[in-house]
């Protein structure tokens, strides 16, 4: 357990750093980390990653919000869309092939990243 404690603290540090720097991506880092280095089973690692990232995101948004003007109006509309989209997404999950979903989504991410580097 002593070794695991050290590993968990280090992995938490990296997760928090990335999530704070980019305002996202904590889950993308924490889920595989927990599976590979802490031997947490896949479903449990998704659940526990949320439990870790939630307090870290609250901490980060406090720091961001004390230095920025929070765009509440945008947040409201984005959240309304997000709630409806989230419900449909969960339903669609059972109907679409996960493999293709990851590929299509990966292409969108690469296209957006190129646009952000050039633009």
């Amino acid at each position, binding site marked *: 357990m002593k070794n*695991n*404690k050290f590993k968990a*603290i*280090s992995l*938490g540090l990296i*997760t*928090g750093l*990335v999530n*704070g*720097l*980019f*305002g*996202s991506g904590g*889950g993308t880092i924490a889920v595989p980390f927990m599976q590979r280095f*802490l031997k*947490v089973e896949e479903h449990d690692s*998704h*659940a*526990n990653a*949320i*439990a*870790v*990232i*939630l*307090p870290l*995101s609250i*901490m*980060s*948004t406090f*720091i*961001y919000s004390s230095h*920025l*003007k*929070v*765009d509440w109006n*945008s*947040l409201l*509309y*984005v*959240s309304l*869309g*997000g709630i409806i*989209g989230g*419900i*449909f*997404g969960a339903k*669609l999950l059972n109907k679409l092939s996960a493999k293709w*979903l*990851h590929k299509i*989504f*990966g*292409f*969108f*991410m*690469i296209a*957006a*990243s190129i*646009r*952000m*580097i050039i633009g």
Partner: protein
Amino acid sequence: MTLFIIGLLSGLISGMGIGGGTILIPSLTIFLDISQQNAQNINLLYFIPTAVAALVIHIKNKRIKKELISFLIIGGFFGAIVGSYIAISLKSLILRRLFAFFLLFMGISEIRK
């Protein structure tokens, strides 16, 4: 309307179990000219209520390993403070480029899954 559609798509994607922020943040900066820091903060705030709802269910199902996550959170707080202060002190354009490389790396790993 654009905001609503961006939210809808991000929600759709996160409902499917893929990180919604990776769509939400670039969309806000590309289509709406919102600064990188503000887009990231919108994503952080947008994540909180969804995460609370999910967490309640996971706690009921007894999936949460309290001892393990306490160490992750301790380390995580230090990381979150450092990461957030770096983010707010960088120029929006520099942070946007850094984010883009992070996104590129994640996009490639999605395709290889």
